């Protein structure tokens, strides 16, 4: 079953330049999809359109088979049953970790909060405030807060960009593990192909607001049709060769 179906989606902020142009794809339930591209390629716009935080100029979006965005109606974010983790984590600074996690719950139970804190490997952090956490801890609390509502789809905006290399690799694995464990689907944005290679099942490559490809990770490396993708991969391979040569 498809969790997301997007058809001919376009968005322009100034009426002249399209931040996203004619983008179409579907994502199967349970899959992890990475949206890759340079700055200004339209990655964030795509994610915000799916979340309902932006209004498209044209095109349609279906989530779980239900039309949530077309020319006639826009279903607001709070009715789409999806969760989003922002690049700056957007934890509420005046609330404790426990209150942040329980924020969206109608009836919050200590047990739910405890369970989620255990899931993200931060037990005992209930009474801490966001300004007392490290970047990685903030990231995981933001994820737990989103997971508390058991969303059908998880959206992560550049989840690894603010983290150092060691933490990044560790957190990638941890997030992948959690997503597989709860059986949800995930779309995440990254400008680093390594993030995609490490945990994604599929990859969408955007350039200048246009979708150049949507395929599995294996196909991405096997079928290089587009010149700029080929260039990116060649650079990646060259770097890998250099590192190998140095270590040997």
């Amino acid at each position, binding site marked *: 079953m498809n969790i997301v179906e997007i058809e001919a989606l376009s968005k322009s902020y100034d009426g002249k330049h399209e931040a996203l142009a004619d983008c179409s794809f579907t994502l199967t339930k349970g899959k992890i999809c990475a949206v890759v591209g340079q700055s200004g390629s339209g990655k964030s716009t795509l994610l915000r359109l799916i*979340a*309902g*935080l932006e*209004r498209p*100029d044209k095109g349609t979006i279906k989530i779980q088979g239900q039309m949530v965005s077309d*020319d*006639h*109606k*826009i279903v*607001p*974010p*709070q*009715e*789409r*049953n*999806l*969760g*989003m983790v*922002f690049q*700056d984590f*957007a934890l*509420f*600074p*005046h609330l404790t970790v426990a209150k942040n996690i329980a*924020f*969206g719950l109608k009836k919050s139970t200590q047990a739910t909060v405890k369970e989620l804190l255990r899931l993200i490997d931060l037990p005992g952090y209930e009474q801490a*405030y*966001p*300004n007392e956490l490290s970047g990685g801890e903030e990231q995981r609390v*933001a994820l737990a*807060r*989103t997971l508390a*509502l058991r969303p059908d789809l998880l*959206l992560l905006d550049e989840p690894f960009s603010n983290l150092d290399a060691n933490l990044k690799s560790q957190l990638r694995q941890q997030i992948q593990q959690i997503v597989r464990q709860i059986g949800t689907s995930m779309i995440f944005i990254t400008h680093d192909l390594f993030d995609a290679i490490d945990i994604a099942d599929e990859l969408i490559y955007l350039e200048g607001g246009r979708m150049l490809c949507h395929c599995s990770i294996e196909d991405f490396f096997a079928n290089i049709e587009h010149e700029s993708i080929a260039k990116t991969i060649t650079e990646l391979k060259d770097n890998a060769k250099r590192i190998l040569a140095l270590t040997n």
Partner: protein
Amino acid sequence: MRIRSKHLKRDLNQWSIYTLAIGLFVAIPVFAIFIYLFDGVGEMWDHITTYFLPDYILNSLILLLGTGSLTFLIGTSTAWIVSNYDFPLRGLVEWLLFLPMAIPSYIVAYVYVGLLGYEGTLIRGLQSLGISITKIDVMNIGGLIWILSISLYPYVYAATKGIFQSFPRSMRENSALLQASSRHHFFKLALPLASPAIIAGLFLVFMEVLNDYGAAKYYGIQTFTTGIFRTWTALEDLQSAVYLSALLVVLMFLLNSLMNWLRNRRSYALKISQEDTQKQARRNLKGSQKALYLIVLWIPIIMGVLLPVFQLIYWATLTYESMLNWELLWISLQSFGLALSAAVLIVVVSLALINFANWNHLKGIKALKKISTIGYVIPGAIIGIGVIKSSQSIINFFDTYFDLAVGNLFYGSSFILVYAYVFRFLAVAYNPIEANSLKLGKNLSESAYTLKISKLATLLRVNLPLLRPTLISALILVFIDILKELPLTLILKPYKLQTLAVKAYEYADDERVAEAAWPSLLLIFVIVLLMLLVEYGPRKNRLQASK
């Protein structure tokens, strides 16, 4: 208004309608002035244009020029010294220089007559020193320029001090390495870089000069604002007052455009690192330079704060038996109650306008929120005329079509006065709340939406707790402005309502200046207390503490 028709139906929501309704309702007074122009000129218009209008224009321009020059001199020089030098009582002086903001100019105006007129306190002091002097006449345009300047220079001082203190240390060090003298550094670097802030401060001074009624009326100087009052009350020609108001609105917008043009022409992007500015070293003053700079600093404090306050205290000691009574308490309570209720309403309207406009998806309607905040650049007299004229139309409408007499609702209660305050002072609350909402960013609200929380609930649970210090400051600032406000209150207050500002003005106008001291002192005391609260009250919240 650019609204994409293709998505109009999809993008129009309840927030668009609420924004439109609030925006239009708040902006009625300014629309009214221009709509009523079509009713034609009033009976006295020819008389006014022949005998009075040239004086109104000339006097207003002289006041603008004179007060602008003096506030520029006092504001920038004091800001420069305070920002760059260390001297005895520096912290106190830095704060005292703000204090004229707490003393309305109409109070300073009658205090100076009491100080320098026949038998004036200062004149008697000079006479006791053997100086042969009977009075110093301040009740002329020069005197009014002086009064307005020592009352209004803090607008320039505050804006300029902020920018001077944010200059990076490296700028002065570079300047010294390039062998520039202090004078060269000030005139060639500091002043040009601070000019956008100075222009912004001067613009506020101009607004206050054109809004002034009490001081100009007391000194008998004919300005646009006193002219509007005179045309309406003495000449009983409301329609000509509308025409004068429209002329003044045009003058304000020309002034606004000129200031914006100047500011944009002179705006520079300063790269300031917080660390760098914090290290900015102040130099010690020595010798004759120290004496000169201390005089420059203490003159506005003595003239604008200490002399008026001491004179008021002296008068208060003479009149406490007759003035300290239940009536004064009752007037104070009415004054504070009125200011508080209007201030709360203004903060609520600001919050509603900012958030409803953001929640609406039509760009044209977003722009409307700016129109509803222009009240601060429109003098109270004009707003008063606009409100009176539109109230008359509404009263006539109900009378003609429904046979309902609603006049008492408008003129017998404080309804139209509070409404006029909302229009006049909306920007005072709106601007800081909007700026701090922008600082909070969209992500916090948006993450709440994705957690299935509605927009209103997000506002209550996320934005309001984080904006609490800003909301309290905004409330206090509006409260202070309303407490001091005179022309609007004079025009629109119901007969039985009294405020401290109006009472002080009425006593002074009746030549009972000593009695005016009590309401004036009470007003100043409360305002100073509130200013201290804004400056030193609890401000930090977890957002500011967060990384």
